[in-house]
């Protein structure tokens, strides 16, 4: 009998119309779009948006709580909110889309913030955690296979705070899955996201008129369209699929072709020289990423999205090339100042 009632409860929580989903980083690009798409999903009863900034996409079903994950009291407040709202699933999307100079703050937000979220989730007995991560965590290496699977070790440059924080965050999520076996933990590693409205390190790189490349290196790259990224998050919220998934668009493009398709001019720089230029440029805030990102302009870091297709049931609607072309069409309007928006 108890098992049956348990099952019924499980069914009611997963299938019924009383599911409550909490979204951290709800004012960010992925967060706000996920809130918007969950608003229109009948299977979701309520959305709990957690972000210190106002959530523009919040609608009738959404309750917004201004909780700052970098705050030392965030954990207690989160646990309180999650319990009071009887949250079933947390979509943890409070991550930075591009590197920042405020590394201490970024560490508090990503690494420590994830700790707050996972601990609060255990306190409030949340059933599921969906977390956003990045395929760049595999690291760009000459010795990478052409398609990295989820089993591959994460070999991103650990000296770079941007990657180190995200690696620690993934570690926290995996620990949660180990310590409380009842919790479904899905980690979605997305390829660089491109699209008409998204802003991140890669879109800023392609927004330059002169795009620096490494002389003699032309790695294959892959992208994920922003719509596919949102759809994958939505799918992971709806379906219970524990594990790590690469979420990527189909197809690969050489970096030089990417730059040509974007209508930019590439400036090849010998890589030993580029390290120095990038280091100086980063300190002077002239370039969008620190020198450790240059590896991604030299070597392969392409992931295999087969597992997400099989287990999560995620099929990207856009190929890498279509995602790029969609970004380029919007970028052209920005170039001539016909389109301007505040970066999310």
């Amino acid at each position, binding site marked *: 009998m108890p098992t049956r009632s348990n099952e019924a409860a499980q069914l009611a929580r997963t299938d019924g119309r009383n599911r409550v989903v909490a979204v951290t980083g709800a004012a960010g690009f992925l967060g706000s779009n996920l809130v918007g798409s969950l608003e229109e999903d009948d299977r979701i009863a309520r959305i709990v948006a957690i972000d210190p900034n106002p959530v523009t996409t919040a609608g009738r079903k959404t309750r917004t709580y201004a909780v700052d994950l970098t705050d030392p009291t965030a954990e207690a407040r989160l646990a309180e909110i999650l319990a009071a709202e009887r949250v079933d699933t947390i979509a943890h999307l409070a991550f930075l889309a591009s590197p920042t100079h405020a590394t201490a703050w970024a560490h508090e937000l990503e690494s420590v913030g994830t700790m707050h979220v996972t601990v609060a989730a255990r306190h409030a007995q949340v059933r599921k955690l969906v977390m956003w991560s990045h395929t760049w965590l595999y690291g760009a290496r000459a010795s990478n*296979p052409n398609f990295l699977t989820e089993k591959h070790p994460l070999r991103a440059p650990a000296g770079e705070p941007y990657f180190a924080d995200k690696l620690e965050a993934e570690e926290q999520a995996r620990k949660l899955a180990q310590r409380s076996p009842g919790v479904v933990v899905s980690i979605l590693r997305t390829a660089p996201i491109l699209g008409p409205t998204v802003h991140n390190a890669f879109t800023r790189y392609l927004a330059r008129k002169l795009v620096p490349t490494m*002389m*003699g290196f032309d790695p*294959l790259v892959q992208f994920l369209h922003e719509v596919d990224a949102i759809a994958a998050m939505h799918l992971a919220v709806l379906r219970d699929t524990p594990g790590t998934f690469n979420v990527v668009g189909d*197809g690969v493009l050489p970096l030089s*072709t990417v730059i040509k398709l974007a209508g930019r001019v590439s400036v090849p720089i*010998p890589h030993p020289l580029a390290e120095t230029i990038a280091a100086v440029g980063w300190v002077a805030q002239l370039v969008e990423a620190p020198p450790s990102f240059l590896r991604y302009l030299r070597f392969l870091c392409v992931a295999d999205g087969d597992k997400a297709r099989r287990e999560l049931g995620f099929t990207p609607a856009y190929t890498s090339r279509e995602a790029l072309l969609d970004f380029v069409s919007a970028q052209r309007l920005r170039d001539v100042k016909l389109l301007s928006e505040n970066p999310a």
Partner: protein
Amino acid sequence: MTESNRKPAARKAARPRKKAKPAEGRPQVAPPPSVPSLEVDAVERPSDADVAARIRELETKMDEMMVEHARERESQHDLDDGPRRRLSTVPPARPSAPVMPEGMLDTARELLSTDFYLRKWGRLGLRNRSEEVDEFGHDPVYEGKVRPFFDFLYDRYFRVEAHGVDRVPAEGRCLLVANHSGTLPFDGMMLRMAVQKEHPRHRDVRWLAEDLIFHFPFLGSFSNRVGAVRACQENAERLLDSGALVAVFPEGMKGIGKLYKDRYRLQRFGRGGFVKLCLRTRTPIVPVAILGGEETNPMLARVEYLTRAFGIPYLPVTPTFPLLGPVGLLPAPTKWKLFFGEPLDLQGYGAESADDEILVGRLTEEVRAAIQAMLDHAVGERRSVWFG
């Protein structure tokens, strides 16, 4: 139902020019054989009395057909409701309106499918490359551009002769296992060329190249665009799973780095990784012996002192290399011969035998011995390094 069908037909009758079209455009109503000729006549000879008579004739015919059709449908109707739904949607779909844009789209597609438009007006700067490479980075358009150079190497410079290419299966996955030679490895590309030119099915070979070349600027991305893939289990397995023809050089760096005095003596074949792979994926192995590569840049000595600092494992010393500078790296125009051996079929072993180290060792040695025997025979037969 019948009524709604009749209405457009009645309207048609008032306009003689278009009268035959509804019958033509409606797929369910099989037009009687006389209708096309009628239409042609009506267009060519608009004599009024004739036309009127024919309109009447056609009208009665169509009415008959519709009644018949309706009866047919009614009988089907009882069985399932699929046809009924189709019936209700068909009449509003007038044949003239929706067909046009579709037809125009088709012509646009056709125009794009010919190379002409892309060649002439293709995106600026993309004329020398494809917009999309395959998943391992091979770019057929780019390869086409550099092809004349490789053609020259194959036909004129090394004058490659390929023996027994037809032993490579016409289709399906297959692994070519070859000896590695030459300080600068041209053998992968020459093997690719040989199968592409001489094989009856002109199959594409993807060869697996050492990691090292992917560390170097230019060399790595260039070989990748023309068909090389980094050598690792994951890549080989993925390629074989897609039914590709893959070439490996199990000697690896030890093969390229052997001294001239050790020429045509096969080095250790790794740890038999390629045999395990073939057992797992049930892939036949074709041993290949490449003769002539060893003399292109005969290595007299290896200098390993301080070279690590520059990211290279050793500095080769050939009769010409450090002496003449970069020009010294030009390969000597030796005569090349490629020998394809009997395929080794591994179908008889199960996938679990990949873990059987004794079996793997035995098969590895078998392949190695086959290549060594072909090489020894070929070296014995050869009279001149330059003319074969």
